[in-house]
């Protein structure tokens, strides 16, 4: 599978455009990957990527702290849940309220060749990233040619 480089250093003008087209292409033509998701239009949205050694699941959940996010795995199912506080201060009133708050939970069924026990998660700039490596036997391997 081709891995893309969306590096602004390689192509400062079109890096973002290329990434957006690639994300769009997958929305329009799913690669037939059945993640057993609860469906599109459920908040918060997730994106799933593949990389050389595994999968990357990404979710945009800005304004939370890592303690408010719960990540669980059960068999092949990865569940991301949490609660975003509305953080309403006291002594004033809202003019506009567009940011959503409340509880969320999303479950994904991952391919069997991934090792969920070695999954790692990070939270940066409001983006939750979970990296799930492939099982050792499923990793790409260099095969050497024996001399005859």
């Amino acid at each position: 599978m081709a891995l893309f480089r969306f590096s602004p250093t390689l192509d400062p003008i079109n890096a973002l455009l290329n990434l957006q087209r690639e994300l769009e292409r997958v929305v329009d033509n799913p690669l037939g990957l059945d993640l057993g998701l609860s469906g599109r239009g459920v908040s918060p949205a997730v994106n799933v990527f593949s990389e050389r050694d595994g999968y990357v699941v990404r979710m945009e959940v800005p304004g939370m702290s890592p303690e408010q996010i719960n990540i669980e795995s059960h068999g092949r199912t990865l569940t991301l849940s949490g609660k975003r506080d509305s953080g309403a201060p006291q002594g004033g009133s809202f003019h506009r309220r567009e940011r959503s708050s409340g509880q969320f939970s999303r479950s994904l069924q991952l391919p069997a060749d991934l090792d969920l026990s070695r999954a790692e998660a990070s939270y940066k700039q409001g983006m939750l990233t979970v990296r799930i490596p492939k099982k050792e036997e499923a990793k790409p391997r260099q095969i050497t040619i024996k001399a005859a």
Partner: protein
Amino acid sequence: MTNQELTPREKQELTRDEQTRPGRTYVPDVDIYETADSLWLWADMPGVDEHSLELNVADGVLAIQGRVALQDYDNLAPVYTEYNVGNYARRFTLSNEIDAEHIKARMTNGVLELELPKTERAKPRRIAVAAS
């Protein structure tokens, strides 16, 4: 209210103002809150850090712009996608009551927080009534 589920909300694409660079731009979701002394604004801009954020006040218009970091997508191939990523932009017309010189901004976990202090003139004042 506290147990309410997060309501589904698609990212809103900015379609009015054309940007000079190619690519989609999104409108960040904002909350605006008013207290006696200030207006507070929070904008959800996941993927943007404090260095890629640009705030401008000109002619009474506050312009917020944020660029997403693309390094996080290096060497990844999308296999399932529900949202697109892009830069953020949104503009607000400020009333004369805002002291543009003293606006404070802070970026935490993908949320921009702006404090827009009111001018002294615009702050509510309690007028004491003297008993006659």
